[in-house]
């Protein structure tokens, strides 16, 4: 069994702070969700995960984007870059970077759920025959055009030819977010419950991915595995478990609710 080898101290740089664990779930209504899985090159396998998590073979990235109509933080769009992993025997992802389109959403994602969110322009556009997603640093155009400084978007992808699936065909995997918590630096386990009304699978292509902008230069999503789009409501339950990032889940898990 292999484990992550990343330095917890280095990963903790800029980690969000959760001052107190909330007791209420967060409901997101009218969500257009995009989920994309891409294989990563081997150097990223252990090197991007803390020792408390285990990589899978082949290493893979799970990209998640939501365009949210209703939430406690208002309407917003967000995207998460996550590395597929295992916490103990459980399927999980480790969130290495996140972007959200409003200050309220950034604050909520960071302080309530421990997502390492930064303010950015996130545009998830659904067409009759496909979907486009562009994420650009705040102040940069979200249409993929280069800025006057020469920087490109953080992420740009396009997906075509939607193929309807059953709503149960899409599996969702929770996130482990490294955050400073009342219990110390911990991997915060964030689950999501989805109520989709429509799910489609598409053929996708990543046109641009700035790994450094997402906080992890080793990420190189070179082989797209799958892409799906859903119309759904999402509930994020209150956090129940956190894990010591330096220990296996069997030894380092604490229950907080």
């Amino acid at each position, binding site marked *: *069994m*292999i484990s992550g080898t990343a330095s917890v101290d280095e990963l903790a740089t800029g980690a969000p702070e959760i001052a107190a664990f909330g007791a209420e779930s967060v409901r997101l209504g009218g969500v257009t969700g995009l989920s994309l899985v891409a294989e990563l090159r081997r150097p990223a396998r252990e090197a991007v995960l803390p020792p408390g998590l*285990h990589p899978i073979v082949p290493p893979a990235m799970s990209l998640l984007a939501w365009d949210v109509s209703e939430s406690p933080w208002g309407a917003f769009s967000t995207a998460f870059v996550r590395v597929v992993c295992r916490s103990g025997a459980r399927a999980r992802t480790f969130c290495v970077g996140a972007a959200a389109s409003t200050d309220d959403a950034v604050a909520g994602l960071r302080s309530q759920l421990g997502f390492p969110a930064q303010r950015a322009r996130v545009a998830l556009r659904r067409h009759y025959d496909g979907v486009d997603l562009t994420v650009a640093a705040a102040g940069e155009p979200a249409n993929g055009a280069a800025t006057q400084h020469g920087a490109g978007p953080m992420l740009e992808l396009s997906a075509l030819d939607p193929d309807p699936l059953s709503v149960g065909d899409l599996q969702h995997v929770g996130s482990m977010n490294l955050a400073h918590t009342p219990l110390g630096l911990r991997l915060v386990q964030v689950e999501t419950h989805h109520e989709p009304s429509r799910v489609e699978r598409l053929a996708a292509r990543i046109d641009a991915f700035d790994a450094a902008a997402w906080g992890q230069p080793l990420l190189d999503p070179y082989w797209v595995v799958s892409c799906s789009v859903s119309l759904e409501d999402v509930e994020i339950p209150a956090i129940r478990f956190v894990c010591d990032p330096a220990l296996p889940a069997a030894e380092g898990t604490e229950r907080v609710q």
Partner: protein
Amino acid sequence: MKFGIFYELSVPRPFSRANEWLTYHNALEQCRVADELGFDHVWAVEHHFLEEYSHCPAPEVFLTAVAAQTQRIRVGHGAVVCVPEMNNPIRVAERAAALDIISNGRLELGTARSSTWTELGGFCADPDDTKKTWDEFCRVIPQMWTDDDFGWEGARFEMPARNVIPKPFQEPHPPMWVTVTTPGTELDAAERGLGCLGVSAAPFAEQERRTKEYYRRVANCDPVGSFVNDQVHTLNFLYCHEDYRQAAALGLPMVGAFSMSNAHLYFTREAYPTRAYQTLGNAGAALRSRGTPNGSAPADDPSVAKGLPEGVGIGDPDHLVRTIRKWEDVGVTGINFLLNAMEMIPQEQVLDSLRLFATEVIPQFQTPDERAERVQAPTTVPDISASDSTAPSTMPAGASR
């Protein structure tokens, strides 16, 4: 009740040429001992790229060595992945027939479709298609074995008419099986008259439900082969020791490590949304949760290891006899055992476990005739004279099926 041994050929980290060599050669020695002790089957899987969990991409090679080094144990080539990007069905039929000849008619052929993205993605196979290609493989392979002029125009495979040779030694052909991980696959097996080769240890109640439905359907099946193979085998672990506590001390960590390595596979359902894969595959799917009084821990608690499969074959002989009686009561006709994982149990102790099981447990499930049969001399090699090349004068056991 039939007893078999089952190989994933899991290899410990750090990987080395020596570790892979040791795993293969320890397994071959176990097969020779199991043959002498009267075990019925040895199965070897086909997996690709599954680091640590299974370094067994060419089971037909391993099983050819087994066949050459043993006398009576049946060799289970299973399961062959019935996905054209991995195996052409003509090559499967040819290789299996050759192995049946080499083994003097001791081949069993298992079929499967792979459950991990690691494997399917590595071969650029479309997960949506694997159930369909599996179905087509199951139908064409027995025809290739029995028809001298076989051609096919199917949905996923076609070929102009040829005589696929050699023909298998067993007549009309070796028994065929389907590996069953996903609930419902046992029904696919039954409808096609194929044996049910469980590779995930379902709990007793679930196994009983599935087995009953399998027997109900197989009784009225439309077999894809020339006969119905209506056996139900399940997968288990084996570590047998006179002292239950010692058995548990050595055997349970092996079960846990194997299960953990299984949980770390990248299953297709997780990577690729499709209606063709509704559950996680293989042994991990069968592990029950534990940690609360009602046996179900919160599904999101990462600190709770998934529990042992019910009826696991770890313990002293009396415990194992009681456990296997329960499997027998739910309609299972055979159990295939994993003997080790990542070489955690020293080879001598694996062999001692096999010997103790064969001495103390297997006889409890045999009739006097079966006990006598197990100590018979090995079957003779067919005597084929130059003047009569049409048929062997002495047929090895199983060849006249």
